[in-house]
């Protein structure tokens, strides 16, 4: 028991009635105005922790996936990470993902509203509202040696390869090795063992 029922009731009651309306009004108004921070434009756009973590997952996937021979023209060809459709990451995270090393290759970031056959993507994070648009984006990526990553049910339903999801406040992922296998993309066994579920 936190506080005795009778006690809490009377105690709080008396307290609140003692606060004069004007004083109470001031408290509320002051709480809103006094705590408002000085607006500095530098605070703008601090990314969600969710997408900071998802960006880190995206980068990690790049390290645990193998593309079929011939996908890269040379040993130094950059690895192209593409954000396809809507962009839930935002600019601050673009800078974080670009210019890193994976498989000895430099990562390159592309933001695409629509994928095209010559966009050069190796990994595509696909984000769109559930509906025809998601279906179309996935259709355009179908049959290409592109690792598709997403975080919606609709993404998985459309044959997405790696789906990120939040379960009990923690990030988990499902892998569809069937979809990936069709285009010759394979996953490191460590990655597979960490997946919540692997669809074969």
């Amino acid at each position, binding site marked *: 028991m936190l506080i005795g029922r009778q006690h809490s009731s009377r105690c709080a009651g008396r*307290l*609140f009635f003692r606060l004069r*309306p004007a004083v*109470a009004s001031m408290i509320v108004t002051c709480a809103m105005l006094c705590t408002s921070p000085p607006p500095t434009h530098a605070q703008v756009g601090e990314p969600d922790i969710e997408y900071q*973590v998802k960006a*880190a997952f995206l980068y990690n996937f790049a390290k645990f996936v193998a593309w079929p021979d011939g996908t890269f023209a040379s040993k130094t060809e950059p690895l192209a990470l593409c954000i396809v459709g809507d962009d839930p990451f935002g600019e601050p995270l673009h800078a974080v993902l*670009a210019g890193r090393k994976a498989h000895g290759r430099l990562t390159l970031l592309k933001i695409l509203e629509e994928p095209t056959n010559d966009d050069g993507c190796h990994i595509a994070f696909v984000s769109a509202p559930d509906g025809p648009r998601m*279906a179309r984006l996935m259709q355009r990526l179908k049959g290409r040696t592109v690792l598709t990553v997403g975080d919606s049910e609709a993404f998985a339903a459309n044959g997405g390869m790696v789906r990120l999801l939040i379960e009990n406040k923690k990030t988990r992922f499902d892998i569809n090795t069937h979809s990936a296998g069709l285009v010759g993309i394979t996953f490191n066994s460590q990655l597979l063992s960490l997946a919540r579920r692997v669809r074969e």
Partner: protein
Amino acid sequence: MKIQQQCFATVFCALAFLSLAAPGPSLANEQAQPAQVAAAIQVAGARGLVPSRYLELNLQELMDIEITTAAKKARKLSDSSAAAYVLTEDDIRRSGATSIMDALRLVPGVEVAAINRHTYAITIRGFNDRFANKLLVLIDGRSVYTPLFAGTYWDVQDTVLEDIERIEVVRGPGGTLWGANAVNGVINIITKRAQDTQGTLISALGGNEEQGTFVVRHGAKIGDNAYMRVYAKSLEREGFEGPTVPIGDDQWRNVRGGGRLDWEASETDSLTVQGEYYDGQSFARQVEPTLSAPFTTGRFRAETDFAGGNILGRWKHLLGGGEQTELQVYYDRVDRQANNFNQYRNTIDIAFQHDLPIGDNSELIWGLGYRYVNDQHSNSIVFTLTPPDDTVNVFSAFIQDETSLLDDRLVLTLGSKFEQTDYTGFEAQPTARFLFKPADRHTIWGAVSRAVRSPSRVENDIEIFSRVLPTNALAPGVPPSPAAVLLRGNRDVDSEELLALELGYRPQLSDTVSLDIAGFYNDYDTLRAVVQRSSFEADPRLGIAIVADATNKMEGEGYGGELSADWVPSQRTQFRLGYSFLRLNLRLDPSVTVASIDEGFEDASPRNRAFMRGLFQLSADLELNATLRWVDGFSVNGTRVASYFTGDLRLGWLPVDGLEIALVGRNLTENEHFEFGESAFASGQATPVERSGYLMVTWER
């Protein structure tokens, strides 16, 4: 006892004032951080060598990071061609709301008014009443409006608030997908999946009005991809006591328990089974006619005992390529005994839905539904239903197509719901909507929709003995005798119809400021009006009866708009603003020469309402929420409800992981104010809302 009182008061005051004093230096330090981040990113863009704390982590470590709900994503409605708003889990927790009803106060355009401690009048875009009947409320896909009066018994709509994932509110007709009664809006309460409520949660809450709310919830993994949770909750609110209403008598008690199971049976199949049982009591001062001299209408303490339960199963099957099917079945039982008027209702509802992508740019959703409602009533002196027992079958179907054009800058939605009921026959509720994005960050949408509200059991079958008029109240020429005033339903009552035009604009003004503006024009036809007959009728009890019949002899227009604005200057500080304006013009058919109480709805909603919310993360473990609300004056059944301005404060402290202590003050600016009046249809005596406070402790691990 005195020491304890002082102690509580001191702690409260100290916390309240510390919270105001604290932000100065400590916040200034923390706010410097984003500036550094922003600067660093620019360097990153140039050189690509930035350390990011998450990027350096391995997968295992990443999987251990706790993700707090991203309000932004949950709130992402820029792609909806309707006036929609989402209240997130975080919004609800930080508001200090202790009931679903109180949480709804934070949704722009939702009119929430407490009639007393447990009885609320809630509506969207007008016609507010205890028996407000143009709003559909769903909890996890289960309709909770009662076919008795086509409204919602709010005193039994509750759950563990911590388990609510979000509350979606659609203002305007939602009839195409949701069916009859979604005339002016839909409130959709969605609880979390069992996999998102793992572990144990215990919470206790008590204050001067809230006499104790206790929650225990436990979630566990019970198999491969199968999770469950069970919960129990009890609440008690003290009745009103004060000079304004000498005898309040509006106590409320409620106990409930339930559970949910979520099983991802295979890659393509997921199954949800959930159920709940509740039991409680509420009290209110009700009116009842006296059949002996002096033939007036007395008031007495009426006890309402309610109990009920439901069980729901949902099976979702993915067919690939974006195609999916969903089958949902539920059974709901309501048992409510009030003032000798007892009702028992069994509902069985089956719904099937199929989502089918067509080509590259189009998606078709269609569905079929069947609802069986069987009720039994025992009549009282005030309420008589004829027949007392009845069964209703409702068959429904809907189809909707959504097509994207011009590289998704234009989305067209066309659809209709079709319903066949025993009472009113066949009804179609079509809608046509568009969504247009002329530029990045700008969305315009519009809709034309037809919606209907089918008559309720009351409008068809009831006789309400609403009061007794003593002899001297009768017209001259009539033999002196006391008279009964009877409100009577009949089976000729037809559906109410609405043709709604809506237009909305959602600009993202900057990275931190977004606006959502919606306007509507509602054209109502065949609205219900209870109209008094010109002649008297013989009454076995009193000799004479004045009868008023339910008719459809009213029409009218409603217009108005809602504005909501979000300003998120940083992750630590958020401001929300909501404003709504509403006008209703109602007209009785020219053939009607007497007044009707239904005309009163014209004034039963405030014209202007506004709220402002500030959410502040004062430090890593201290958060503050302040809300200011202003509601314009209006009239209920001839009684004026004065305009009021009030505010709530919540201070939350998270001293260690999993523990939260919150101190909440509500309606702080005034000792008390009325939010609604006693409605013409037996709502019970209205009591004011008082200044109140409570302390809440939540422990979760």
